[in-house]
């Protein structure tokens, strides 16, 4: 390309690029307004309603509703299921992502598809699958009964459902990072005599750290809010197998609106905490990535 051509291009490039890409100002404001209105109606208004309804009768009834023993036990069960789901899915997600990105094997595509299954299948169906697998009609039920290990209408069922529904989140976050990275650095480390776990700790983990944390945050958020599959497996035994979302449903069903909103507000607070953690993770991850 001649020098003259280059100059022409750079002169054109110096005219306001936004004018060429973004269209008119009217479009800009219409799009912004639409987005804001949409967010307000879909997100902000419901949030305000929840908080308003929760505190409508004042702080004391709110605290009473929140400190109800059933609610406390629901909160604890939700946290328990979330922590276990996050731990199991982190381990599983790392293994699966590692296997898929680093090895060549038959059925790899199938495995990738299967990992996505929990997000595509309806949670109700997921719940039913477990009821059929571990419930009274199941072939392994007599065995479970003999070791006194109940899955359906018991805490293990709730945990199982939560794990199932949330298991793609972590592996899905790590996979693209591992795939983009390739295996050169690991090979280089292996050639110098580094063994498997050290390679993972020193080379791979620093790469996927932020993706992993992000995945964990998403997984935790989803685990706390899980309703469908848990609802099928829970049996709604108050104080035993009821998680926070189920507790909200029960209170709502009993026409106890204020307590229902009060319990909801706990979930909202948890969600906001997770959003903040997510933003921090994203921010730090991005800054590290730029270095």
């Amino acid at each position, binding site marked *: 390309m001649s020098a003259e051509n280059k100059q022409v291009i750079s002169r054109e490039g110096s005219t306001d690029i936004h004018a060429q890409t973004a269209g008119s100002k009217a479009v800009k404001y219409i799009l912004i307004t639409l987005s804001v209105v949409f967010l307000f109606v879909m997100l902000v208004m419901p949030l305000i309603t929840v908080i308003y309804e929760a505190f409508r009768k004042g702080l004391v009834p709110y605290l009473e509703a929140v400190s109800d023993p059933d609610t406390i036990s629901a909160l604890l069960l939700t946290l328990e299921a979330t922590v276990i789901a996050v731990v199991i899915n982190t381990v599983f997600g790392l293994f699966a992502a590692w296997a898929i990105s680093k090895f060549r094997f038959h059925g790899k595509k199938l495995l990738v598809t299967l990992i996505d299954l929990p997000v595509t299948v309806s949670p109700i169906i997921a719940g039913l699958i477990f009821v059929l697998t571990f419930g009274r009609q199941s072939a392994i039920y007599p065995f479970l009964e003999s070791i006194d290990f109940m899955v359906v209408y018991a805490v293990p069922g709730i945990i199982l459902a939560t794990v199932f529904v949330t298991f793609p989140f972590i592996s899905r976050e790590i996979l693209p990072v591992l795939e983009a990275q390739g295996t*050169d650095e690991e*090979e*280089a480390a292996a050639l110098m005599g580094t063994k498997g776990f050290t390679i993972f700790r020193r080379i791979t983990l*620093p790469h996927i750290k932020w993706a992993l944390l992000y995945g964990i945050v998403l997984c935790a958020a989803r685990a706390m809010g899980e309703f469908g599959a848990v609802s099928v497996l829970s049996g709604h035994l108050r104080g035993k197998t009821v998680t926070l979302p189920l507790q909200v449903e029960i209170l709502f069903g009993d026409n106890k609106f204020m307590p229902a909103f009060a319990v909801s507000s706990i979930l909202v607070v948890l969600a906001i905490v997770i959003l903040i953690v997510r933003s921090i993770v994203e921010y730090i991850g991005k800054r590290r990535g730029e270095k």
Partner: protein
Amino acid sequence: MYIELKNINKSYGDFKASDNVNLEIEKGRLVALLGPSGSGKTTILRMIAGLERPDSGEIIIDGKVVNDIPASERGIGFVFQSYALFRYMTVFDNIAFGLKVRKMNKAAIKERVTELIKLIGLEGFENRYPSQLSGGQRQRVAFARALAPNPQVLLLDEPFAAIDAKVRQELRKWLKDMIHKLGVTGIFVTHDQDEAIEVSDEIIVTNKGRVEQSGTPIDIYRNPTTAFTSAFFGVTSELKDYKAFKSFDEVDEYDRAIVRPEFVKITKKSEVQKYKSSAVEGRVETVEFRGNSIEITVSCNGSIFSARRSLDEPAVEVGETVDVFIYRIFITHGDSVKLLKNNAVREETVVI
């Protein structure tokens, strides 16, 4: 022989990456594995390193069959095409990595790393991260990292591919000097014949998973023994009908007649051509300045091929009619190649 590959075969599915590969490399030599992409050169390198396993055959290093010895115990340094520097570690930690794995004591590591950083001329860059270095600097760090544990063999996969032309030139010379100074045996993969000729002591030409030819650069360039090598080296052009050019022996069966620019002499009508009776007339098609010479393409007897003239000689112009004399032609038939010399030149030497 220091490194030997015997009857090596390796397939990826239907693709035969190594087809009965045999090669020998002497200690202390810098050898180029040269071939077009997909010719199996990187596979050979990775098998020597132990990053891939051959399906059959033996890899011998220093008299030992190393097929079952893991990569980390072969005493090999490897420089990846992408350099594969650990991006979350500083230059210092990158070079020190292989030494830390060996549980060397801290003082010794510091001494060795400092020595290597001096060797690659990156003093003051110890605490930089790879992303803060230029391509050439990264390459040198990768080189130092591979050398840190004192390997006997250094393998380099397309070491100069990602570096711009000017720096590449310097690095080639630097690498050659460095390898000879350190006395390690070096093998590097390249698809660039100039690079192979310039840097290596010996070239192994690969094509379609096979070793076509090996030898010193000058030997391979002058005496190609296969059809592939004769066409691969140099700027080759093909003659449609070589028999139309005067005073060559006739060959009954042949596939291609190949000439390089240095086989062709172009003279203006006003200049003296010693072998005028054996020259044919041609028309100048293009004239291009190549820095140290003028490259001319001529059409002659229905073929178009290139030749060079020095800058000191009178200029030729596009469309000019010139005398074209061909000294030599490579004639290929199947896999084999034969060098035909112009009889006009031969007769004269006989007379003298």
